[in-house]
């Protein structure tokens, strides 16, 4: 669906839905009565007050998440085994998959060339990686 950008008098741009239709004198648009709202990625955010954005560095989570990908991290989601999480481990942030092994909790990299980390008393889940964004054609 296109949106036509029209030049406002003072020089600022204004997006007008279906302005194209309106410019043609006389012809009513069959879509006039069905104009819907615009889709917005923000609708995927479940808990806005608890959602933070971050950037992934490194390749410990390849091939799932790549270096430079945008992470949408939700602190209000309860972390479950299998979730990709941002954790604080040994005083640093790390992005790993949460795995339960007996009564041990592990932070595992999807990339097997990286070591598996075992959670201790100081480890903390900072948030669950809810969504990742990748730009395939920069």
């Amino acid at each position, binding site marked *: 669906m296109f949106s036509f950008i029209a030049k406002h008098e*003072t020089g*600022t741009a204004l997006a007008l839905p279906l302005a194209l239709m309106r410019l043609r004198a006389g012809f009513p648009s069959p879509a006039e009565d069905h104009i819907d709202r615009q889709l917005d990625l923000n609708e995927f955010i479940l*808990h*806005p*007050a*608890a959602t*933070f*954005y*971050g*950037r*992934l*560095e*490194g390749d*410990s989570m390849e091939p799932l998440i790549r270096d430079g990908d*945008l*992470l949408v991290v939700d*602190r*209000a989601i309860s972390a479950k085994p299998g979730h990709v999480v*941002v954790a*604080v481990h040994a*005083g*640093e*942030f*790390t*992005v790993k998959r949460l795995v339960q092994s007996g009564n041990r909790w592990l932070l595992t990299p999807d990339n097997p060339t990286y070591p598996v980390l075992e959670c201790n008393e100081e480890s*903390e889940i*900072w948030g669950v990686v809810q969504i990742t964004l990748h730009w395939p054609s920069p």
Partner: protein
Amino acid sequence: MISLVDANNFYVSCERLFDPTLRGKPVIVLSNNDGCAIARSNEAKALGIKMGQPVFQIKDLVRRHGVIVKSSNYTLYGDISRRVMELVGSSVPESAVYSIDEIFADLTGWPLPDLANWARTLKERIYRETGIPVGIGISHTKTLAKLANRLAKKSAKAAGVLVLDRSDWIELALERTEVGDVWGVGRQYAAKLSAQGIHNARQLRDIPDRSVRDMMAVGGLKTVRELRGERCFPLDDNPTDKQTICVSRSLASEVTELDEMRDLLSGFVGRGCKKLRRGGLVAGRMQMFVLGNRFREDRPNFSLSVDVGLRPYTNDTRLLCMAIGENIGRLWRPGLQVKKAGIILLDLCRPEAVHRDLFTPGPISSSPLMASIDGLEEKFGLDAVTVGRMPRGRADWFTRSDNRSPCFTTRWSDIPRFR
């Protein structure tokens, strides 16, 4: 019952959220221009660093104990505060934000069987979702809730939550609170009361009304009544329309030239007008002021200000910059070494409310140009657009934000990196 949710060492907590290495260590956050410690972690407090203590006084202490020093980042703190307030606001029927890190809530009529449990759950939820540790105090009035909140933080047993509903607990709590720590009792009143033998909040509560009015003003009587459990302060005590807008800064190095001063004040006025437009207000008066260095004993301390009437009432940055240009001559004199300067916008009101007469043109507000500027700033950040004279990032004026954290939650370029 009234509840007060108050963040623990808020600015430090914001910094710790994005830097786990700061946990458990002495950390302080400095005011604008890195002048004074305006937030301290518990470890820093334990070292004796006082609230508002100028940094030059504690340089040695900082070095000796490896105190971590951060410059304030109000953009970051404001955004984290918004999140905490949203969470609390959506958890209670009625609430009122009191400051950047405090919010009162009215729980009257809410059927909560176990207030302490509810508060503990809320505290845990706030930490989990926003990363900010808070204390919660609950009692019959705002003043008692504040009292409870303070004790909640100090007592290890309370673990950050304290409900004072039983009269015997309230008695104990009042006895444990010094009169100067009661909300609304400033240092001067505390000294006065102490001289009369009133040392704790229980003694204060028991003073007869007439004596209270003699020793403290009418506001003092309300405080004492609140200590007795009578609600005197409404939940939302802050008027929605601002009375004045002040924009001021301390400067890294003294300003000695008129032109520099004018540019600086024009910058402040730009910020002030933005706030006016955001509030839908216009101003009828402006004050410009300059101050000398109050900590240097070898230089004369001075305080000069000039009052300018604005006709028509306006929130247009260009007109206010012109007013500064026209009046700075009245303020300036040769040989000044200005350490702090600012502007205050007064006589604020809505454009419709401005008194009109035959000779005064109507108020000038929110022109399309100003609206465009505000829109651009929203998209590209503060100071993206400046008006003629206004300074563009004069680094040497405001530097000394040597250790400011990135805007982790409001700039894409600053979002945290996770490995």
